Protein backbone atom coordinates (compact mmCIF):
# COMPACT_ATOMS: atom_id res chain seq x y z
CA UNK A 1 0.00 0.00 0.00
CA UNK A 2 1.41 3.41 -1.00
CA UNK A 3 1.66 5.68 2.06
CA UNK A 4 2.92 8.64 -0.03
CA UNK A 5 5.82 9.21 2.36
CA UNK A 6 7.94 11.09 -0.20
CA UNK A 7 5.35 12.48 -2.59
CA UNK A 8 2.17 14.54 -2.27
CA UNK A 9 -1.03 12.59 -1.70
CA UNK A 10 -2.89 12.58 -5.06
CA UNK A 11 -6.24 14.38 -5.12
CA UNK A 12 -8.08 11.13 -5.90
CA UNK A 13 -6.74 9.61 -2.67
CA UNK A 14 -8.15 12.36 -0.44
CA UNK A 15 -10.95 11.55 1.96
CA UNK A 16 -14.18 13.04 3.31
CA UNK A 17 -14.66 14.41 6.80
CA UNK A 18 -16.19 11.20 8.27
CA UNK A 19 -12.87 9.38 8.61
CA UNK A 20 -11.30 12.36 10.36
CA UNK A 21 -14.17 12.58 12.86
CA UNK A 22 -13.69 8.90 13.77
CA UNK A 23 -9.91 9.19 13.89
CA UNK A 24 -9.89 12.16 16.23
CA UNK A 25 -12.63 10.72 18.44
CA UNK A 26 -10.70 7.48 18.92
CA UNK A 27 -7.21 9.03 19.22
CA UNK A 28 -8.15 11.51 21.91
CA UNK A 29 -10.13 9.19 24.17
CA UNK A 30 -7.14 7.39 25.61
CA UNK A 31 -5.27 6.27 28.70
CA UNK A 32 -3.95 9.67 29.66
CA UNK A 33 -7.46 11.11 30.07
CA UNK A 34 -7.63 8.95 33.21
CA UNK A 35 -4.62 10.82 34.59
CA UNK A 36 -5.46 14.33 33.39
CA UNK A 37 -9.03 14.49 34.78
CA UNK A 38 -7.97 13.60 38.36
CA UNK A 39 -4.85 15.78 38.13
CA UNK A 40 -7.07 18.80 37.35
CA UNK A 41 -8.87 18.12 40.64
CA UNK A 42 -5.51 17.77 42.41
CA UNK A 43 -4.39 21.04 40.80
CA UNK A 44 -7.25 22.83 42.51
CA UNK A 45 -9.30 24.00 39.55
CA UNK A 46 -12.74 25.41 40.33
CA UNK A 47 -15.93 24.12 38.70
CA UNK A 48 -16.26 27.21 36.49
CA UNK A 49 -12.59 26.98 35.48
CA UNK A 50 -12.88 23.39 34.34
CA UNK A 51 -16.32 23.53 32.70
CA UNK A 52 -15.83 26.84 30.87
CA UNK A 53 -12.02 26.84 30.59
CA UNK A 54 -12.06 23.50 28.79
CA UNK A 55 -14.75 24.75 26.40
CA UNK A 56 -12.62 27.76 25.50
CA UNK A 57 -9.26 25.95 25.39
CA UNK A 58 -10.58 23.11 23.25
CA UNK A 59 -12.20 25.61 20.89
CA UNK A 60 -8.83 27.33 20.47
CA UNK A 61 -7.22 23.94 19.76
CA UNK A 62 -9.86 23.13 17.12
CA UNK A 63 -9.40 26.55 15.49
CA UNK A 64 -5.62 26.04 15.46
CA UNK A 65 -5.99 22.71 13.68
CA UNK A 66 -8.45 24.27 11.24
CA UNK A 67 -6.69 27.52 10.41
CA UNK A 68 -3.00 26.74 11.05
CA UNK A 69 -2.34 23.04 10.45
CA UNK A 70 -4.93 21.85 7.92
CA UNK A 71 -4.45 24.61 5.28
CA UNK A 72 -0.70 23.87 5.04
CA UNK A 73 -1.38 20.12 4.96
CA UNK A 74 -3.94 20.48 2.16
CA UNK A 75 -1.71 22.88 0.18
CA UNK A 76 1.37 20.60 0.05
CA UNK A 77 -0.11 17.18 1.02
CA UNK A 78 3.23 16.06 2.51
CA UNK A 79 4.11 14.32 5.77
CA UNK A 80 5.60 16.45 8.52
CA UNK A 81 8.90 14.62 8.07
CA UNK A 82 9.17 15.17 4.34
CA UNK A 83 8.14 18.82 4.57
CA UNK A 84 10.67 19.37 7.35
CA UNK A 85 13.35 17.63 5.30
CA UNK A 86 12.66 19.94 2.36
CA UNK A 87 13.06 22.94 4.65
CA UNK A 88 15.96 21.85 6.85
CA UNK A 89 17.64 18.95 5.07
CA UNK A 90 17.87 15.24 5.98
CA UNK A 91 20.07 15.89 9.04
CA UNK A 92 17.35 17.92 10.73
CA UNK A 93 15.14 14.84 10.59
CA UNK A 94 17.80 12.99 12.61
CA UNK A 95 17.68 15.68 15.30
CA UNK A 96 13.88 15.66 15.25
CA UNK A 97 13.83 11.87 15.54
CA UNK A 98 16.13 11.85 18.56
CA UNK A 99 13.88 14.38 20.34
CA UNK A 100 10.74 12.55 19.22
CA UNK A 101 12.08 9.14 20.27
CA UNK A 102 13.03 10.31 23.76
CA UNK A 103 9.67 12.04 24.23
CA UNK A 104 7.72 9.02 22.95
CA UNK A 105 9.60 6.86 25.50
CA UNK A 106 8.41 9.20 28.28
CA UNK A 107 4.83 9.12 27.04
CA UNK A 108 4.95 5.34 26.60
CA UNK A 109 6.15 5.12 30.21
CA UNK A 110 3.02 6.94 31.36
CA UNK A 111 0.80 4.73 29.18
CA UNK A 112 2.43 1.54 30.50
CA UNK A 113 1.94 2.80 34.05
CA UNK A 114 -1.76 3.46 33.40
CA UNK A 115 -2.22 0.02 31.87
CA UNK A 116 -0.39 -1.70 34.75
CA UNK A 117 -2.55 0.04 37.37
CA UNK A 118 -5.46 -2.07 36.07
CA UNK A 119 -3.74 -5.07 37.68
CA UNK A 120 -3.20 -3.29 41.01
CA UNK A 121 -6.83 -4.08 41.97
CA UNK A 122 -6.97 -7.89 41.44
CA UNK A 123 -3.41 -8.25 42.82
CA UNK A 124 -4.26 -6.02 45.82
CA UNK A 125 -1.09 -3.97 45.43
CA UNK A 126 -0.62 -0.82 47.53
CA UNK A 127 -1.14 2.25 45.35
CA UNK A 128 1.48 5.01 45.06
CA UNK A 129 0.42 8.31 46.60
CA UNK A 130 0.17 11.61 44.75
CA UNK A 131 3.43 12.86 46.24
CA UNK A 132 5.38 9.63 45.51
CA UNK A 133 8.16 9.78 42.94
CA UNK A 134 9.44 6.21 43.22
CA UNK A 135 7.77 2.78 43.36
CA UNK A 136 6.36 1.73 46.71
CA UNK A 137 6.58 -2.05 46.48
CA UNK A 138 8.37 -4.87 44.69
CA UNK A 139 5.00 -6.09 43.41
CA UNK A 140 4.34 -2.76 41.69
CA UNK A 141 7.71 -2.85 39.93
CA UNK A 142 7.19 -6.47 38.87
CA UNK A 143 3.70 -5.79 37.47
CA UNK A 144 4.82 -2.69 35.55
CA UNK A 145 7.84 -4.49 34.10
CA UNK A 146 5.71 -7.48 33.11
CA UNK A 147 3.05 -5.34 31.42
CA UNK A 148 5.71 -3.18 29.77
CA UNK A 149 7.63 -6.22 28.53
CA UNK A 150 4.56 -7.67 26.84
CA UNK A 151 3.74 -4.30 25.26
CA UNK A 152 7.34 -3.88 24.02
CA UNK A 153 7.47 -7.38 22.52
CA UNK A 154 4.14 -6.90 20.74
CA UNK A 155 5.29 -3.50 19.43
CA UNK A 156 8.60 -4.97 18.25
CA UNK A 157 6.97 -7.88 16.45
CA UNK A 158 4.55 -5.58 14.63
CA UNK A 159 1.29 -4.71 16.23
CA UNK A 160 -1.31 -5.00 13.48
CA UNK A 161 -3.53 -7.09 15.73
CA UNK A 162 -3.39 -4.38 18.41
CA UNK A 163 -4.36 -1.74 15.84
CA UNK A 164 -7.34 -3.86 14.82
CA UNK A 165 -8.26 -4.37 18.47
CA UNK A 166 -7.90 -0.63 19.16
CA UNK A 167 -10.33 0.13 16.30
CA UNK A 168 -12.71 -2.45 17.73
CA UNK A 169 -12.49 -1.02 21.25
CA UNK A 170 -12.66 2.70 20.38
CA UNK A 171 -16.48 3.17 20.43
CA UNK A 172 -16.70 1.06 23.59
CA UNK A 173 -14.06 3.24 25.25
CA UNK A 174 -16.02 6.41 24.46
CA UNK A 175 -19.16 4.78 25.92
CA UNK A 176 -17.23 3.70 29.02
CA UNK A 177 -16.14 7.27 29.74
CA UNK A 178 -19.81 8.28 29.56
CA UNK A 179 -20.59 5.40 31.91
CA UNK A 180 -17.99 6.70 34.37
CA UNK A 181 -19.79 10.03 34.53
CA UNK A 182 -23.26 8.52 34.78
CA UNK A 183 -22.14 6.08 37.50
CA UNK A 184 -20.13 8.64 39.48
CA UNK A 185 -22.79 11.35 39.67
CA UNK A 186 -25.26 9.49 41.94
CA UNK A 187 -22.33 8.38 44.14
CA UNK A 188 -21.52 12.06 44.61
CA UNK A 189 -25.13 12.89 45.51
CA UNK A 190 -26.43 14.20 42.19
CA UNK A 191 -30.10 13.21 41.96
CA UNK A 192 -31.27 15.94 39.61
CA UNK A 193 -29.82 18.50 37.23
CA UNK A 194 -30.21 21.09 39.97
CA UNK A 195 -27.79 19.16 42.20
CA UNK A 196 -25.02 19.21 39.61
CA UNK A 197 -23.64 22.69 40.19
CA UNK A 198 -23.60 22.23 43.99
CA UNK A 199 -21.72 18.93 43.64
CA UNK A 200 -19.43 20.32 40.90
CA UNK A 201 -18.27 23.03 43.29
CA UNK A 202 -17.47 20.31 45.82
CA UNK A 203 -15.59 18.17 43.26
CA UNK A 204 -13.55 21.03 41.75
CA UNK A 205 -13.15 22.96 44.98
CA UNK A 206 -10.29 25.25 43.96
CA UNK A 207 -7.84 23.78 46.52
CA UNK A 208 -4.62 22.37 45.06
CA UNK A 209 -2.99 19.30 46.64
CA UNK A 210 0.38 19.80 48.35
CA UNK A 211 3.32 20.14 45.91
CA UNK A 212 0.98 20.78 42.97
CA UNK A 213 0.71 24.01 40.99
CA UNK A 214 -2.52 25.88 41.74
CA UNK A 215 -4.46 25.96 38.48
CA UNK A 216 -6.57 28.95 37.42
CA UNK A 217 -8.99 29.47 34.54
CA UNK A 218 -6.07 30.43 32.30
CA UNK A 219 -4.12 27.28 33.20
CA UNK A 220 -7.09 25.19 32.10
CA UNK A 221 -7.52 27.18 28.86
CA UNK A 222 -3.84 26.93 28.00
CA UNK A 223 -3.57 23.25 28.92
CA UNK A 224 -6.58 22.37 26.74
CA UNK A 225 -5.20 24.49 23.91
CA UNK A 226 -1.57 23.41 24.11
CA UNK A 227 -2.02 19.85 25.42
CA UNK A 228 -1.75 18.65 21.82
CA UNK A 229 0.46 21.43 20.51
CA UNK A 230 2.93 18.96 19.01
CA UNK A 231 0.11 17.96 16.66
CA UNK A 232 -1.40 21.33 15.74
CA UNK A 233 1.07 24.19 16.33
CA UNK A 234 3.91 21.68 15.96
CA UNK A 235 2.36 20.44 12.68
CA UNK A 236 2.48 16.74 13.60
CA UNK A 237 -0.96 16.33 12.04
CA UNK A 238 0.20 17.47 8.61
CA UNK A 239 0.64 13.73 8.14
CA UNK A 240 -3.07 13.16 8.79
CA UNK A 241 -4.61 16.21 7.14
CA UNK A 242 -2.65 15.76 3.89
CA UNK A 243 -5.44 13.29 3.09
CA UNK A 244 -8.20 15.88 3.76
CA UNK A 245 -10.19 17.01 0.75
CA UNK A 246 -10.66 20.47 2.27
CA UNK A 247 -8.80 22.45 4.92
CA UNK A 248 -11.99 23.01 6.90
CA UNK A 249 -11.90 19.32 7.84
CA UNK A 250 -9.63 20.55 10.63
CA UNK A 251 -12.94 21.14 12.40
CA UNK A 252 -13.16 17.33 12.77
CA UNK A 253 -10.67 17.70 15.62
CA UNK A 254 -13.66 18.92 17.67
CA UNK A 255 -14.78 15.27 17.94
CA UNK A 256 -11.58 14.40 19.79
CA UNK A 257 -11.41 17.59 21.79
CA UNK A 258 -14.97 17.58 23.10
CA UNK A 259 -15.32 13.81 23.62
CA UNK A 260 -11.80 13.18 24.90
CA UNK A 261 -10.63 16.47 26.31
CA UNK A 262 -13.97 17.62 27.68
CA UNK A 263 -16.29 14.72 28.50
CA UNK A 264 -13.50 12.24 29.35
CA UNK A 265 -11.47 14.69 31.46
CA UNK A 266 -14.57 15.72 33.39
CA UNK A 267 -15.77 12.16 33.98
CA UNK A 268 -12.26 11.06 35.02
CA UNK A 269 -12.28 13.96 37.49
CA UNK A 270 -15.60 12.68 38.84
CA UNK A 271 -14.01 9.24 39.43
CA UNK A 272 -11.34 10.93 41.53
CA UNK A 273 -14.01 12.84 43.47
CA UNK A 274 -15.78 9.55 44.30
CA UNK A 275 -12.48 8.21 45.66
CA UNK A 276 -11.92 11.34 47.77
CA UNK A 277 -15.47 11.11 49.06
CA UNK A 278 -14.85 7.54 50.28
CA UNK A 279 -11.50 8.44 51.83
CA UNK A 280 -10.44 12.11 51.86
CA UNK A 281 -6.88 11.11 52.73
CA UNK A 282 -6.53 8.90 49.62
CA UNK A 283 -5.25 11.45 47.10
CA UNK A 284 -3.56 8.86 44.86
CA UNK A 285 -4.15 9.19 41.10
CA UNK A 286 -4.15 5.54 40.07
CA UNK A 287 -6.53 4.85 37.17
CA UNK A 288 -7.14 1.12 37.88
CA UNK A 289 -8.65 1.48 41.35
CA UNK A 290 -10.41 4.73 40.31
CA UNK A 291 -12.25 3.01 37.47
CA UNK A 292 -12.95 -0.18 39.44
CA UNK A 293 -14.75 1.73 42.18
CA UNK A 294 -17.54 2.93 39.87
CA UNK A 295 -17.56 0.47 36.97
CA UNK A 296 -16.27 -2.80 38.47
CA UNK A 297 -14.47 -5.32 36.25
CA UNK A 298 -15.37 -3.37 33.10
CA UNK A 299 -13.59 -0.35 34.55
CA UNK A 300 -10.43 -2.40 35.04
CA UNK A 301 -10.73 -3.66 31.48
CA UNK A 302 -11.06 -0.11 30.17
CA UNK A 303 -7.88 0.99 31.96
CA UNK A 304 -6.00 -2.03 30.64
CA UNK A 305 -7.25 -1.58 27.07
CA UNK A 306 -6.85 2.22 27.01
CA UNK A 307 -3.30 1.95 28.35
CA UNK A 308 -2.39 -0.95 26.09
CA UNK A 309 -3.73 0.51 22.86
CA UNK A 310 -1.88 3.79 23.42
CA UNK A 311 1.35 2.34 24.86
CA UNK A 312 1.84 0.00 21.93
CA UNK A 313 1.95 2.63 19.17
CA UNK A 314 3.99 4.89 21.46
CA UNK A 315 6.73 2.25 21.92
CA UNK A 316 6.55 1.44 18.20
CA UNK A 317 6.93 5.13 17.23
CA UNK A 318 9.82 5.58 19.67
CA UNK A 319 11.59 2.56 18.14
CA UNK A 320 10.92 3.79 14.62
CA UNK A 321 12.22 7.28 15.46
CA UNK A 322 15.51 5.89 16.79
CA UNK A 323 15.86 3.33 14.02
CA UNK A 324 15.37 5.92 11.28
CA UNK A 325 18.57 7.65 12.47
CA UNK A 326 20.55 4.52 11.57
CA UNK A 327 18.47 2.42 9.16
CA UNK A 328 20.93 -0.49 9.51
CA UNK A 329 19.90 -1.03 13.14
CA UNK A 330 17.37 -3.79 13.64
CA UNK A 331 13.92 -2.27 14.18
CA UNK A 332 12.96 -5.13 16.49
CA UNK A 333 15.99 -4.58 18.72
CA UNK A 334 15.63 -0.81 18.79
CA UNK A 335 11.93 -1.12 19.63
CA UNK A 336 12.73 -3.54 22.45
CA UNK A 337 15.33 -1.09 23.81
CA UNK A 338 12.82 1.78 23.57
CA UNK A 339 10.30 -0.43 25.38
CA UNK A 340 12.85 -1.18 28.11
CA UNK A 341 13.52 2.54 28.56
CA UNK A 342 9.76 3.19 28.74
CA UNK A 343 9.41 0.44 31.37
CA UNK A 344 12.16 2.06 33.47
CA UNK A 345 10.30 5.38 33.26
CA UNK A 346 6.96 3.70 34.06
CA UNK A 347 8.10 2.37 37.41
CA UNK A 348 8.38 5.95 38.66
CA UNK A 349 4.82 7.13 39.34
CA UNK A 350 6.12 10.65 39.89
CA UNK A 351 6.11 11.11 36.12
CA UNK A 352 2.45 10.17 35.83
CA UNK A 353 1.60 12.23 38.91
CA UNK A 354 3.08 15.25 37.10
CA UNK A 355 1.61 14.31 33.72
CA UNK A 356 0.15 17.79 33.14
CA UNK A 357 3.68 19.19 33.03
CA UNK A 358 5.04 16.22 31.05
CA UNK A 359 2.42 16.77 28.33
CA UNK A 360 3.37 20.43 28.10
CA UNK A 361 7.11 19.71 27.84
CA UNK A 362 6.45 17.14 25.10
CA UNK A 363 4.60 19.72 23.03
CA UNK A 364 7.05 22.52 23.75
CA UNK A 365 10.09 20.59 22.57
CA UNK A 366 8.56 19.78 19.16
CA UNK A 367 6.47 22.93 18.67
CA UNK A 368 9.21 25.24 17.23
CA UNK A 369 9.40 23.09 14.10
CA UNK A 370 5.73 23.92 13.47
CA UNK A 371 6.52 27.62 13.60
CA UNK A 372 9.35 27.06 11.11
CA UNK A 373 6.97 25.28 8.71
CA UNK A 374 4.34 28.03 9.14
CA UNK A 375 6.82 30.84 8.38
CA UNK A 376 8.34 28.88 5.50
CA UNK A 377 4.90 28.40 3.97
CA UNK A 378 3.36 31.84 4.47
CA UNK A 379 6.17 34.38 4.73
CA UNK A 380 9.45 33.44 3.11
CA UNK A 381 8.46 33.83 -0.53
CA UNK A 382 6.51 37.05 0.21
CA UNK A 383 9.64 38.49 1.78
CA UNK A 384 11.83 37.61 -1.19
CA UNK A 385 13.30 34.40 0.20
CA UNK A 386 13.04 30.80 -0.88
CA UNK A 387 10.82 28.18 0.74
CA UNK A 388 12.05 24.56 1.01
CA UNK A 389 15.56 26.00 0.94
CA UNK A 390 17.54 22.88 1.89
CA UNK A 391 15.99 20.92 -0.98
CA UNK A 392 16.59 23.68 -3.52
CA UNK A 393 20.16 24.32 -2.37
CA UNK A 394 20.93 20.61 -1.95
CA UNK A 395 21.96 21.03 1.70
CA UNK A 396 22.19 18.15 4.17
CA UNK A 397 21.52 20.59 7.01
CA UNK A 398 20.15 24.11 6.73
CA UNK A 399 20.96 25.92 9.97
CA UNK A 400 18.14 28.51 10.39
CA UNK A 401 15.51 25.93 11.49
CA UNK A 402 18.01 24.43 13.96
CA UNK A 403 18.85 27.89 15.32
CA UNK A 404 15.13 28.74 15.65
CA UNK A 405 14.51 25.43 17.43
CA UNK A 406 17.41 25.67 19.86
CA UNK A 407 17.15 29.39 20.59
CA UNK A 408 13.39 29.39 21.19
CA UNK A 409 13.74 26.44 23.59
CA UNK A 410 16.64 28.14 25.37
CA UNK A 411 14.56 31.30 25.77
CA UNK A 412 11.68 29.13 27.11
CA UNK A 413 14.08 27.60 29.61
CA UNK A 414 15.21 31.06 30.66
CA UNK A 415 11.63 32.32 31.04
CA UNK A 416 10.78 29.26 33.13
CA UNK A 417 13.91 29.28 35.28
CA UNK A 418 14.59 32.98 35.81
CA UNK A 419 11.16 34.59 35.46
CA UNK A 420 9.06 31.71 36.79
CA UNK A 421 6.81 31.50 33.71
CA UNK A 422 5.05 28.16 34.09
CA UNK A 423 5.35 25.55 31.36
CA UNK A 424 1.60 25.85 30.63
CA UNK A 425 2.06 29.36 29.22
CA UNK A 426 5.42 29.07 27.47
CA UNK A 427 3.97 28.20 24.06
CA UNK A 428 2.36 31.64 23.85
CA UNK A 429 5.67 33.50 23.41
CA UNK A 430 7.71 30.54 22.14
CA UNK A 431 5.82 29.71 18.95
CA UNK A 432 5.89 33.23 17.43
CA UNK A 433 9.44 33.63 18.73
CA UNK A 434 10.59 30.49 16.91
CA UNK A 435 8.97 31.82 13.74
CA UNK A 436 10.66 35.24 14.03
CA UNK A 437 14.06 33.67 14.75
CA UNK A 438 13.68 31.43 11.70
CA UNK A 439 12.72 34.42 9.58
CA UNK A 440 15.74 36.47 10.70
CA UNK A 441 18.13 33.51 10.42
CA UNK A 442 16.81 32.75 6.93
CA UNK A 443 17.29 36.35 5.86
CA UNK A 444 20.88 36.13 7.01
CA UNK A 445 21.48 32.57 5.87
CA UNK A 446 19.88 32.25 2.46
CA UNK A 447 22.50 32.68 -0.19
CA UNK A 448 21.33 33.47 -3.71
CA UNK A 449 24.47 31.93 -5.14
CA UNK A 450 23.55 28.53 -3.66
CA UNK A 451 20.43 28.57 -5.80
CA UNK A 452 22.23 29.81 -8.84
CA UNK A 453 20.73 33.25 -8.54
CA UNK A 454 17.17 32.05 -8.40
CA UNK A 455 15.02 32.29 -5.34
Amino acid at each position, binding site marked *: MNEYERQPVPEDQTRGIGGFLGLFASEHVAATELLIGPLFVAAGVSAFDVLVGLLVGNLLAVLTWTFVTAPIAVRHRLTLYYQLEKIGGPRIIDLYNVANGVLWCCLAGAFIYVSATALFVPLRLPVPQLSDWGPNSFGMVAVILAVGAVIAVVAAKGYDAVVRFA*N*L*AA*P*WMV*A*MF*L*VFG*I*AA*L*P*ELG*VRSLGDFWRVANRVWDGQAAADHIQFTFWHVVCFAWFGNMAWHLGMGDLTIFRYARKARYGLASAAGMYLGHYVAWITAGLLYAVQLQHDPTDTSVVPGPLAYR*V*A*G*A*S*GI*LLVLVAGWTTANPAVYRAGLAFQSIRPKWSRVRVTLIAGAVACCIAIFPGLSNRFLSVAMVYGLVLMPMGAVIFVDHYLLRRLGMSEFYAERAGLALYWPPVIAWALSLLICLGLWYYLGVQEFFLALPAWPLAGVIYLIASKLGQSRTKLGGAS
Partner: protein
Amino acid sequence: MKVLGATISVLALVILIAGPLLHALGPISADAGQYAILAGTIGWFVSAGFWVK
Protein backbone atom coordinates in the same frame (compact mmCIF):
# COMPACT_ATOMS: atom_id res chain seq x y z
CA MET B 1 -23.67 -11.39 9.83
CA LYS B 2 -22.54 -7.76 9.59
CA VAL B 3 -26.04 -6.41 10.18
CA LEU B 4 -26.64 -8.84 13.05
CA GLY B 5 -23.26 -7.98 14.58
CA ALA B 6 -23.90 -4.24 14.31
CA THR B 7 -27.38 -4.62 15.82
CA ILE B 8 -26.04 -6.59 18.78
CA SER B 9 -23.23 -4.04 19.22
CA VAL B 10 -25.71 -1.17 19.41
CA LEU B 11 -27.81 -3.14 21.89
CA ALA B 12 -24.69 -3.85 23.94
CA LEU B 13 -23.85 -0.15 24.15
CA VAL B 14 -27.45 0.62 25.14
CA ILE B 15 -27.25 -1.95 27.96
CA LEU B 16 -23.81 -0.61 28.96
CA ILE B 17 -25.12 2.92 29.39
CA ALA B 18 -28.58 1.96 30.66
CA GLY B 19 -27.15 0.07 33.66
CA PRO B 20 -25.60 3.03 35.48
CA LEU B 21 -28.35 5.32 34.21
CA LEU B 22 -31.06 3.15 35.77
CA HIS B 23 -29.04 3.04 38.99
CA ALA B 24 -28.77 6.82 38.94
CA LEU B 25 -32.54 7.11 38.46
CA GLY B 26 -33.20 4.65 41.28
CA PRO B 27 -34.79 1.40 40.01
CA ILE B 28 -31.69 -0.83 40.21
CA SER B 29 -28.81 -1.25 42.66
CA ALA B 30 -25.20 -0.22 42.03
CA ASP B 31 -24.22 -3.90 41.70
CA ALA B 32 -26.92 -4.48 39.09
CA GLY B 33 -25.66 -1.41 37.25
CA GLN B 34 -22.13 -2.84 37.21
CA TYR B 35 -23.40 -6.20 35.91
CA ALA B 36 -25.14 -4.34 33.10
CA ILE B 37 -21.87 -2.59 32.25
CA LEU B 38 -20.11 -5.97 32.18
CA ALA B 39 -22.84 -7.52 30.03
CA GLY B 40 -22.65 -4.59 27.62
CA THR B 41 -18.85 -4.88 27.48
CA ILE B 42 -18.93 -8.60 26.70
CA GLY B 43 -21.73 -8.05 24.16
CA TRP B 44 -19.71 -5.34 22.44
CA PHE B 45 -16.50 -7.33 22.09
CA VAL B 46 -18.28 -10.49 20.96
CA SER B 47 -20.34 -8.67 18.30
CA ALA B 48 -18.10 -5.83 17.11
CA GLY B 49 -15.62 -8.22 15.51
CA PHE B 50 -18.26 -9.06 12.90
CA TRP B 51 -18.54 -5.54 11.50
CA VAL B 52 -15.80 -3.15 12.76
CA LYS B 53 -13.01 -2.92 10.15
